[in-house]
């Protein structure tokens, strides 16, 4: 069956603009991971997960955690270690977590981003881009096909949101006006200063050339606190978040993350003391 789908060529040009930006912004691994044996890494992770499920295995995992400083992971996110609030997305939706640990489900949104000063949140659902206040009330919305990856940038008086929809990068003002497509614009989201290196079943967070935290299994993200003194490290292998204070060093683990936020939790922002 020879077939050309509608808009195939135009879509290729649009998609290339977006994929090219993703390629330019990727963070190549710092070690020759592609030469390592992916199966071996997978087996190590699987072994760690399997080990974690057995009582003797739990003690092994506990010893590994102790070796990196997490002697007592909190059973829940009782509070944030520093002023600010977290925006978390998961299969359950978008959550806003305050300093005191209270959290609110803003709704069943897919992606989310704080406004520059944390006063509002922009989020996406099936075919809508939505601006919300911290109570989850919709301030404005705009219908666009399958919007995703919103990033809200700017100053207090002039903000804009960039997002992807129908293969195009689009921009809308912070008050929901002036939505338009742009071509091949580079997004201005903050770049991560810390990076994650995964090797031989071990992950480490490297900041300024120095390893600040390491553990067994996989770390999936690292987010810096608004005051820059703490890092939040996502550790799905252990179902934990680990808060790391850089100086003086302190580590606080929080367990049972998926039970608190739902499957595939992702910190979409840590904003604004």
């Amino acid at each position: 069956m020879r077939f050309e789908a509608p808009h195939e060529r135009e879509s290729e040009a649009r998609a290339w603009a977006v994929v090219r930006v993703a390629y330019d912004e990727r963070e190549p691994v710092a070690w020759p991971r592609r030469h390592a044996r992916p199966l071996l890494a997978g087996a190590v992770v699987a072994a760690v997960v399997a080990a974690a499920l057995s009582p003797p295995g739990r003690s092994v995992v506990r010893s590994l955690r102790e070796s990196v400083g997490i002697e007592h992971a909190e059973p829940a996110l009782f509070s944030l270690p520093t002023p600010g609030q977290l925006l978390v997305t998961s299969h359950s939706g978008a959550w806003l977590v305050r300093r005191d640990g209270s959290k609110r489900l803003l709704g069943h949104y897919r992606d989310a981003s704080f406004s520059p000063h944390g006063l509002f949140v922009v989020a996406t659902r099936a075919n809508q881009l939505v601006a919300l206040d911290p109570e989850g009330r919709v301030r404005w919305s705009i219908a666009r096909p399958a919007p995703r990856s919103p990033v809200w940038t700017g100053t207090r008086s002039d903000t804009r949101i960039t997002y992807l929809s129908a293969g195009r990068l689009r921009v809308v003002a912070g008050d929901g006006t002036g939505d338009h497509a742009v071509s091949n614009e580079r997004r201005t989201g903050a770049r991560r200063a810390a990076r994650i290196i995964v090797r031989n079943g071990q992950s480490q967070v490297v900041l300024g050339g120095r390893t600040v935290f390491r553990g067994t299994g996989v770390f999936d993200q690292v987010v810096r606190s608004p005051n820059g003194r703490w890092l939040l490290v996502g550790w799905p292998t252990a179902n934990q978040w680990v808060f790391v204070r850089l100086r003086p060093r302190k580590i606080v683990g929080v367990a049972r993350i998926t039970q608190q936020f739902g499957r595939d939790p992702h910190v979409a922002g840590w904003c604004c003391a």
Partner: protein
Amino acid sequence: MAGSGRDERAWVRRAQAGSVSDFEALFRAHWGPAYRAAYLVVRDAAAAEDIAQEGFVAAVRALDRFDRRRPFGPWLHRIVVNRAIDWARARALRPEAEQVDAPAPERPERDDGLLRELGGLTPEHRAVIVLRYVLDYTPGEIAELLELPRGTINSRLRRGLDSLKERL
């Protein structure tokens, strides 16, 4: 057209090393099949574009972990087709979502009887037919791609074809 296996391995290797031109060669070789497969499963050009594009973005993110000894196409098609099936299932559950601000087509979409009737199959049946007869994968390869037993693939192919035959 996708390049030869040797070309493709070279593109992947150099793309992993940071060569934009080789990454572009990889993209150009695989965009058409990925987009077509997504379109035939979801029957929506904008969604197909998003799905295929997301597949490539996911591929970019995993590029450094990609094992060059394996072909790139099946790896990409696995991502794209599985996402397309998820999207089609979700739309079936939320029919209101498909009408929101959908852009008007710039030109009439092809109205081919076979393709139209393909839209009447379930996403799962559509996917195996597209993989078999558009992307030319063998049933064994499809089973591996979709992580399903080969018997399931064969029965979906048979039922899908029977259903198409009745409709046509």
